[in-house]
């Protein structure tokens, strides 16, 4: 069992704001993510979930505020190899891209292998372990475009795991894929978090499901509306405290 220090912050977001042109997407967001956390980042369409993720990943730069990674400012962060990212499937990749499943998973090892160095036996071993974890080792020589949507998403998860990250970001990982694959992905994420202490940040609009999976819920609607455990979240939302804040999208889960 790895030692997980839940009191140690891996990510500290302080007063972050961001606009696309004149269109403000995020306003004064502050959020800490601690080691071993399983954070569900929820909110309606256009709430800025993916934008916040891209800010944390350094793909976008905040207009104001600060993001620290492992205690260092983002631009000075040298720990990118500890971070893996499973992009939103909808952003799409070219299904005709001529590449085998194993080649895709090996990419998860590229940065830490170092510039200009070919993949080593260790890289191939980690790629194999990752593919076995998602149950797709027997598909290693298939072209990625020939797999089903659910299988493709599991390959991207395997690519993220092959880098042996301490922190895993997932952007709508189960959107548009079959039920069986969804269950497999959630079960694997649970296992990674609970048994191996992997920190997870999962963007989703399926609040009901996230409440059952995550350790903490962060609701975003341009600004951070709440940050609580699922139990607190349910209590508060039933008393109407957070639902008042333009968050009617949440209310549907009461009916279940």
């Amino acid at each position: 069992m790895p030692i997980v220090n839940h009191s140690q912050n891996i990510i500290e977001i302080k007063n972050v704001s961001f606009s696309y042109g004149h269109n403000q997407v995020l306003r004064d967001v502050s959020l800490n993510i601690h080691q071993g956390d399983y954070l569900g980042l929820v909110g309606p369409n256009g709430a800025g979930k993916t934008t916040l993720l891209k800010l944390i990943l350094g793909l976008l730069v905040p207009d104001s505020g600060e993001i620290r990674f492992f205690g260092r400012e983002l631009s000075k962060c040298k720990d990118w190899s500890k971070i893996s990212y499973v992009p939103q499937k909808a952003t799409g990749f070219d299904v005709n891209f001529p590449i085998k499943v194993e080649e895709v998973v090996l990419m998860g090892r590229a940065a830490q292998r170092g510039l200009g160095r070919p993949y080593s036996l260790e890289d191939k071993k980690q790629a194999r372990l990752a593919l076995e974890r998602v149950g797709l080792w027997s598909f290693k020589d298939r072209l990625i475009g020939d797999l089903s949507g659910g299988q493709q998403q599991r390959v991207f998860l395997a690519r993220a795991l092959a880098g042996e990250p301490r922190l895993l970001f997932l952007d709508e990982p189960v959107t548009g894929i079959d039920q069986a694959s969804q269950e497999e992905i959630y079960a694997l994420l649970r296992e990674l978090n609970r048994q191996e202490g992997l920190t997870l940040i999962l963007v989703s609009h399926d609040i009901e499901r996230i409440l059952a999976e995550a350790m903490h819920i962060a609701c975003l609607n341009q600004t951070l509306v709440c940050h609580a455990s699922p139990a607190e979240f349910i209590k508060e939302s039933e008393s109407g405290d957070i639902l008042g804040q333009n968050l009617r999208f949440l209310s549907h889960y009461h009916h279940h």
Partner: protein
Amino acid sequence: MSILDIFQYGFMVRGLAAGLIIGAIAPLIGAFLVLRRYSLIADTLSHVSLLGIAGGLLLGVNPLLGALAAAVLASLGIEKLRTSRRIYGESALALFLSGSLALAVIILSVGRGFNTNLLNYLFGSIVTVTAADVALMSILAVIVVAVLGFLYKELVYITFDEESAQVSGLPTKRINLILIILAAVTIALSIPIIGVLLIAAMIVIPVVAALQLRQSFGATILYAELFSLFSVVTGIVSAFYFDLSAGGMIVIIMLAIFLLTYTIKSRPAGGPKL
């Protein structure tokens, strides 16, 4: 006339050598451009090179140096425009393509004396390849192969998924820049041999043909190489025996191969879903 007659002519041997060198490096660069939906950059850089050639002829500078300078500068400008995200990638290409062609035409209308010379650059002239050209192309080939080989795993990653590659910490911007500069240099140096109008075809068509076969990344490059080198040899030999344009023949043979691979492997778009 026997089939071996071609080797009695030094200019044909040099032409074949230069053609084979271009045929070998063009698909290597092409693979990374085509898969990024960036095929048009080859066309754009070749037209920019024409501007460099026209400028060189006007100023009395070696036209090849002019082409090289223009293509490399334009490649930097295009990459900057593309990453600024204020302009779509393909719009940036259109701006450079039409702009450089317009400037080239104006320069040509100023100095009417060298128009015949220019025709050689439009369509290339394999028969006028010198030993120095072959040597220069060989050096270029070594550099291109070495750099692409060195950055192979990074280039594959960036081509497949640039965003994730960037998140993982790869220097994507610098690698993109290296690729586009290699493309610019290859195009500029190939122009006297294959011509402004056909160099883009050599970069793009063999790769598009190989993609129809749906193989792994490495196998796709190997097939593209095979198609490219076969087209160069058969194109030049047939041009020699039937007195036709070598560049034109090479490209037509490449297109025939593409049609063949396309029909053999015709399949519903997106491939079969399991």
